[in-house]
Structures are given as structure tokens and as C-alpha cells.
């Protein structure tokens, strides 16, 4: 028997519960060991970037919700900041604070789903029920702000869709109250759980050098001990005013990433608390005539506002020629928007740098030479959303 004939090619996915969507992995196995892994993506390609090219800038925004559907507000924020950078405008402080608050809520929400599904993959069934219990309180905030529970499109170019709800402070503080209690439950169930440790410790390891070479970002990169967080490195939306730490791992394995994500939830809650305590008063939209929609109250009573409203809705605004890149720290890593304007009212090109896509490319590196059962753990610990990988 030759060495080649001993391997078995196994197809995993695209309809496999632990691939978190429609990811297909072609695995070459030698017994229980993975010799070669080849991820196949594209099953959810919807051409969002192409769609955005034919839309006015503010009409392209709702498409961003649908990429990483577990973290819609982070996507909104990235796109809006990029367009604001292209138009060279600033937004009021209240908008910045509210955006930080919402983006951090989104991070907590995304990490909770990750925690539930990752634990589910590894056999801890009940975790999913507990994390979704806490996630519900965050969805309530979404519903109060944007009127919808998932695809809110609440953060808009130049500000917010409408003012924060009157009981915003109260319902967000309910999250601050509930999530830490949940975190204690998760830690009791998982952190010292022998089965969980055996399945994650020393699994899907990547060294700091490799992590940089593979352009990993987010908890994947920080799990290997590289200190790069866009919020600290190149602050946006007023993050420099908030006090928080960036947790770092040592071993670069799935267990370290788990610990980092838990700690990130705690740090996010800390930021949300600061944002609530220091929430400034003021308008919820920037005053940039011809670019940002005037507040609805003005449109009903002021002639000028009505004209601007009409003009922006019908023909949008013209962006200057040139390309800008704006990165935000999405829950999964560095989410970047490269927007090239060409002097017309639609973008020439909107490029999304999806963190999941780049992180997923490292899957062969994580699993080759390891056991077959670790593939599930590796996919889970990367934290992918196929809507974002394929766009």
C-alpha cells in the first residue's frame, strides 16, 4: 500500500450544522489526521458590493446590515464613517457616544451568539439557551432604537436615523445588569469544565508570526498575543475618550480566544457604562446641508429643510473623486470599507474588507496535521459569518 492510497477525501458541508452557514471544507484524511483542508466558499455570494455601486450613498447603507447579520450596527458604523471621511465631515458628540454605545452592544451580542454556537459544536448544548437569553435584552435595545430586531440600519450617514428612544438609558442599563449575571453562569459551565478544556486547549494553534502573515485580526490575532485593536491603534468615533483594556492571549489556541472574547464582553460593558454616564446632549444628526437629511421635524415646518430633504432623497449627494479606507473593530476583527468616489452621486466602488473572509483563509494552517475532530473547534473559534465571507 502506497502512502497516497491511504488518504481518504471527505466532504464536509455546505449543509453541516457546525460550519455556521454554508461553508464547505474538502478534507483529506489519513486515519483521523487531517492531511489537507481546502475551504470552499461562495455559496452565499449575493453581490452586495456590486449592488452598492448602483445605489445612492445613503441607499447603499441597508445592504451593510445583511453582511455580518450578527453585528449589523458595526457594519453600519464602518460604512457611515467611511462615507463621512469621503465627504470630510464631522458628527456631533452625542452621535459619537451613541454610536460607541451601540457598537459595543453589538460586540456583546455577536460574542454571545458565538459563545452559544461554539459551545454547542463542542457538545455543551445548554449554553446556547443561556446566551440567547442574555442576547434578547440587547435585541430589545435594537428594537427600541431602530424599530427592528436585527437589520436596524439605525446608524446613518451623518448621524442616526432618529433620536435615541426616551427610555434608552433604562433599557441599556437593564443589559448592563443582566449580562454580567449571565457571564458568571457561562464561566461556571465552561471555563473550568474538563471536557471543554480538553476540546479547546492546544487546539487550532497559530503563532504570533503566522497570525500576522495571515493578516488575522480581532480575537484571532490577539489570542496569539499581538496587540492590535483598531479602537486603540487608530481610534475612531471618539474611542480615545473611553477607558478600557485590550485582552491578550498567550498560546494562540481556541481556549485563549474563548477567554479573550469573554473578557471583551466585560470591557464592552465597561465602555457602554461610560458612554451612558457621559452621554452628551445635542442634535442626533450633523448639520451638513445637502448631504445629511435634515431632522424630520424641520422638514414639516421649514421650507429650506424640505427642499434639501427632497433633493437628497431624489438625487443624493455628489462625492469627490478619490478613495478612502476606514477600518472599525467589528466583533470578528478589522472591518474595513474602501470607498472610491468618482464625482457622481453613486460610489464607483465599495470594497468591504470582511474580517471573517481573511480569518477563514487561515483554516488550513490551523487544522492540517491535527485531528479531524478539531476541525469543528477550529471553525468555531475563528467565528465566521458566511454572509460576510461571501457578501
Amino acid at each position, binding site marked *: 500500500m502506497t502512502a497516497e492510497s491511504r488518504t481518504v477525501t471527505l466532504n464536509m458541508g455546505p449543509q453541516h450544522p457546525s460550519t455556521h452557514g454554508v461553508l464547505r471544507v474538502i478534507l483529506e484524511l489519513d486515519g483521523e489526521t487531517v492531511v489537507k483542508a481546502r475551504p470552499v466558499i461562495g455559496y452565499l455570494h449575493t453581490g452586495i458590493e456590486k449592488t452598492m455601486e448602483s445605489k445612492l450613498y445613503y441607499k447603499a447603507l441597508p445592504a451593510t446590515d445583511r453582511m455580518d447579520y450578527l453585528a449589523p450596527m458595526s457594519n453600519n458604523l464602518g460604512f457611515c464613517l467611511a462615507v463621512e471621511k469621503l465627504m470630510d465631515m464631522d458628527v456631533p458628540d452625542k452621535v459619537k457616544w451613541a454610536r460607541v454605545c451601540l457598537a459595543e452592544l453589538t460586540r456583546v451580542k455577536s460574542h454571545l451568539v458565538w459563545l452559544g454556537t461554539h459551545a454547542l459544536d463542542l457538545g455543551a448544548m445548554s449554553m446556547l439557551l443561556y446566551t440567547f437569553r442574555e442576547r434578547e435584552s440587547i435585541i430589545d435595545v435594537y428594537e427600541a432604537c431602530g424599530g427592528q430586531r436585527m437589520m436596524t440600519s439605525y446608524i446613518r450617514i451623518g448621524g442616526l436615523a432618529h433620536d435615541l428612544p426616551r427610555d434608552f438609558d433604562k433599557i441599556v442599563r437593564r443589559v448592563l445588569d443582566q449580562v454580567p449575571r449571565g457571564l458568571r453562569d457561562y464561566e461556571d459551565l465552561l471555563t473550568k469544565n474538563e471536557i471543554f478544556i480538553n476540546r479547546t486547549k492546544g487546539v487550532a494553534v497559530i503563532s504570533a508570526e503566522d497570525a500576522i*502573515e495571515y493578516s488575522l485580526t480581532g480575537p484571532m490575532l490577539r489570542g496569539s498575543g499581538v496587540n492590535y485593536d483598531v479602537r486603540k491603534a487608530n481610534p475612531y468615533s471618539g474611542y480615545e475618550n473611553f477607558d478600557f483594556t485590550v485582552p491578550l492571549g498567550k498560546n494562540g489556541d481556541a481556549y485563549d480566544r474563548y477567554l479573550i472574547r469573554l473578557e471583551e464582553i466585560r470591557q464592552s460593558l465597561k465602555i457602554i457604562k461610560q458612554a451612558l454616564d457621559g452621554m452628551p446632549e445635542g442634535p442626533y444628526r450633523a448639520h451638513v446641508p445637502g448631504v445629511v437629511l435634515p431632522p424630520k421635524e424641520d422638514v414639516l415646518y421649514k421650507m429650506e429643510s424640505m427642499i434639501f430633504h427632497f433633493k437628497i432623497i431624489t438625487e443624493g449627494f455628489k462625492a469627490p473623486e478619490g478613495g478612502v479606507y476606514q477600518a472599525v473593530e467589528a466583533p470578528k476583527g478589522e472591518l474595513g470599507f474602501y470607498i472610491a468616489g*468618482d464625482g457622481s452621486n453613486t460610489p464607483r466602488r465599495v470594497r468591504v474588507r470582511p474580517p471573517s473572509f481573511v480569518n477563514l483563509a487561515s483554516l488550513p494552517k490551523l487544522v492540517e496535521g491535527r485531528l479531524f475532530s478539531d476541525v469543528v473547534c477550529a471553525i468555531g473559534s475563528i467565528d465566521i459569518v458566511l454572509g460576510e465571507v461571501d457578501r
Partner: protein
Amino acid sequence: MQDKLREFFKTRFAEAVVKEDTFRDQLSFYVRPDALLDVCQALRHDAELDVRFLSDITAVDWLGHRRESEGRFEVIYNLYSLGHRYRFFVKVLLPAENPTVASLCDLWPSANWLEREVFDLMGVRFAGHPDLTKILTPDELEGHPLRRDYPLTWEQPAFSWNKDEPPEVIK
């Protein structure tokens, strides 16, 4: 960091840089396509600049715009210095006919998928890429959807309702 970069390009690649551009505090260097690999290799291994992180590769199609005369495709390499926390761009302008540029897969493994995506959606070829195949679109799909002359309303693979109709190009 800006001055260091300018100094780097001036002393080592003076003839390779076509032009330099600053837009919204973001620095871009347009380099000649044949010099790209050397420039990136030198940047990657320069200890002082510390440009070890390839953030993104993307491309813009300037068809029908006045910029098209300089080169229809603009391939953008988004580089980041972890030490200096500084981001800048190296850009390459390619002609409409057979746009080809050297692959960076040997320098950064992450370039593999990023280049495949640009190839699939924009049709830019990367010479020396180990596996330059489609990544996002179906195998039977013809053309490169992100090009500006790719029809927007045409569904491919053809379904029964549009099988025999010619595509309507929307500009």
C-alpha cells in the same frame, strides 16, 4: 512615518514610483506594475518601517471615467505598519487589455485568497499565484461581475425567463 516612507521610496525606488497622492490624510504611492514585487519585498523586510501587515487587496474599475486614460484598473494594496500604527496604500494602474501584475503570495499567505477574489470579481490576473481560480462566483458564470461593463440586471447562469434575451447594460 510619512516622511520615512517618502524617504524610502525616494532613495530606493525613485524610478518605480509613478506618482504620489494624499487624499483625506491617506498616503498612496502609485508604482509601476513591474516594480510591485520588489517594492513590497523591500517594505516587508525593512525593519524600521515595520510594514508586516497586508490588510487588504482590492481593485477599482475606472471604465468610462477620465481616469481611465491612466489605466483602467487600479489595484490597491492596503498595507499597515503594526509598530507605527500607520496605514498607507501602494497602488498599481493596469491597462484594460490583459491586466496582469505579480502575485504577493510568497510574501504574505493571506494574499492568496485576496488575490483570488480580485481575479474572480474584477478579472485582474496575478502572475505566479499558486492557485488562481474562482472563489466566490459559481464555476459556470462567465465574466467578472465587478467590472463596470458587466450587466447589472442579467442573471447568470441563465434561468428560463431570460435565457434568450440579450443582457441590458445599465451604466
